[in-house]
């Protein structure tokens, strides 16, 4: 560690303004601050900074994703061995190792492509590299089906970073959640590799599959009017689905960390769940088919609902900023997600589109909250606007 620090300190003069390797400045700075807290002090303006800067915030989010990542790896292996009927004869570590080897390339592709573009843009614009992509880079693999080809993930990541983020001015300026942009791009560009029943479980060309194997997610089955999943399996996550979304339990662990550290807004998480439950009850009341009759609370443990509510909707950049607005924003996400999920046969899961839609409307919600506040205060002061 010390040697690394010395290396960064020693090379620093070479990348200062006017020095020979100045064009490498943002790359140097990016890696330096990734590993160490720098001793630099402000030269002008604000002199007191919160210790919890962007980098620390991002690391907490990544930390809170760890349960979902680990479980996703295990579940990938589990589904594979279940499908080829060798689950009973395979040990825990073998299952986990299989999943690990499947998931690591996806994560690597997402980081290499995304960070490459991010560094290139920072270098070109003379900005400092910032850490916005640390979280997006891990969220992208987690919302992908395991069998999506790697080059598609690379294309989607590039698209998300360039058109979801950089065109708006980089981290903190984006209108939509970049990870969801990547998923939406793949969903519309290569639908055959993002949905259906052949992308969720790696088969590796296995010749023999167990009897009655379908490969579809419980949600897709339910949409086809065929509801048979165990509630415990859905809650703990032993079901097919995108890599990180299946286990509601692992996601809840992450949610606790986010709420305790104050990084994720509990208001959004609660109101998304509330919106989903509300819509579920409504559908139960007016149910005309088996999917609409699905008990309302079971919607929360299926598909990407929990993952979206905890990690996607709470993205502080693309969510609403006002406190009252967060309730409205979250509630509408929940309502729309369940509405899409149950009533639109073209989209088996509505969470992604619901969040992207509400991302779009977040500034509008904020605008009206702020305006009504201004009006109220003007009225109180006796000034007619």
């Amino acid at each position, binding site marked *: 560690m010390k040697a690394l620090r010395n290396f960064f300190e020693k090379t620093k003069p070479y990348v200062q303004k006017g020095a020979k390797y100045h064009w490498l400045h943002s790359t140097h700075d990016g890696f330096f601050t990734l590993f160490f807290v720098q001793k630099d002090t402000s030269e002008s303006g604000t002199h007191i900074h919160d210790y919890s800067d962007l980098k620390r915030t991002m690391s907490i989010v990544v930390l809170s994703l760890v349960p979902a990542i680990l479980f996703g790896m295990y579940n990938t292996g589990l589904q594979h061995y279940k499908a080829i009927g060798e689950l009973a004869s395979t040990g825990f570590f073998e299952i986990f190792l299989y999943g690990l080897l499947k998931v690591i390339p996806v994560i690597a592709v997402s980081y290499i492509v995304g960070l490459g573009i991010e560094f290139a843009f920072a270098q070109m614009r003379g900005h400092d590299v910032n850490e916005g992509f640390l979280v997006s880079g891990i969220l992208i693999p987690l919302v992908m089906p395991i069998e999506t*080809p790697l*080059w*598609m993930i690379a*294309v989607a990541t590039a698209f998300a970073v360039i*058109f979801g983020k950089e*065109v708006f001015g980089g981290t903190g300026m984006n209108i939509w959640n970049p990870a969801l942009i990547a998923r939406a*791009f793949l969903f*519309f*560009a*290569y*639908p*055959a*590799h993002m949905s259906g029943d052949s992308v969720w479980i790696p088969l590796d060309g296995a010749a023999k599959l167990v009897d009655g194997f379908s490969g579809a997610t419980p949600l897709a089955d339910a949409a086809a009017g065929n509801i048979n999943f165990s509630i415990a399996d859905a809650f703990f996550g032993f079901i097919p689905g995108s890599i990180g979304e299946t286990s509601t339990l692992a996601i809840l662990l992450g949610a606790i960390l986010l709420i305790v550290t104050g990084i994720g807004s509990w208001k959004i998480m609660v109101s998304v769940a509330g919106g989903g439950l509300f819509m579920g009850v409504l559908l139960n009341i007016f149910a005309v088919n088996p999917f609409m009759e699905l008990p309302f609370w079971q919607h929360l443990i299926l598909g990407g609902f929990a993952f979206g509510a905890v990690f996607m909707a709470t993205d502080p950049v693309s969510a609403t900023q006002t406190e009252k607005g967060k309730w409205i924003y979250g509630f509408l996400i929940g309502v729309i997600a369940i509405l899409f999920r149950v009533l639109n046969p073209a989209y088996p899961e509505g969470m992604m589109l619901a969040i992207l839609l509400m991302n779009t409307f977040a500034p509008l919600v904020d605008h009206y909250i702020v305006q009504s506040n201004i009006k109220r205060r003007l009225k109180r002061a006796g000034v007619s606007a």
Partner: protein
Amino acid sequence: MSERDPLFSKKNLKLISDPINNSNPITVQVLGICSALAVTAQLKPAVVMSLSVIAVLALANVIISLLRNTIPNRIRIIVQLVIIAALVILVDQILKAFVYDVSKELSVFVGLIITNCILMGRIEAFALGNKPWQSFLDGIGNGAGYGAILIIIAFFRELLGSGSVYGFKIVPDSWYITNGGFYSNNGMMILPPMALITVGIIIWVQRSRNSKLIED
């Protein structure tokens, strides 16, 4: 403009070259976007559409320019529309006669040239105040500027969305996943949103290369 201005003076040539780059109707003035999104999924309809717009725009410009001193100011819009509509119907009939399948593909969009903002824009802004020859060049230039963008968009959309260029297969069949390969066409390229994003990329590239368009 003096009477003795030669036909292809520098000033006149600028009428053609300007709209292709510095004041391109699509990427700089942002006119005629709707048809640019609608007909560019394949290269062939885009080429036919470009030629139609060039023809209609040049002829309409000349006719309006010839009539410019006799059209009463208050009813000029309706006169312009009659002329454009007549030309569009002519073009539509010609397309139906000679390239029937492309004309079917373009469907309503040939008819919609009537409402294309570029036409009204050029007639109002240029033809009503300039001589026929200059108006003709202006029409050709703006039509070509529009067509150039259409063809660029259509090239990329067809290549990435269907794996072909002008109807010829470029991506070998054995590359496709269904045939045991690794490749798959990008379904989003043939949807209109991606056309809009492609227009955005062209604007981005053009603005970062053309120093006249860089705003502070």
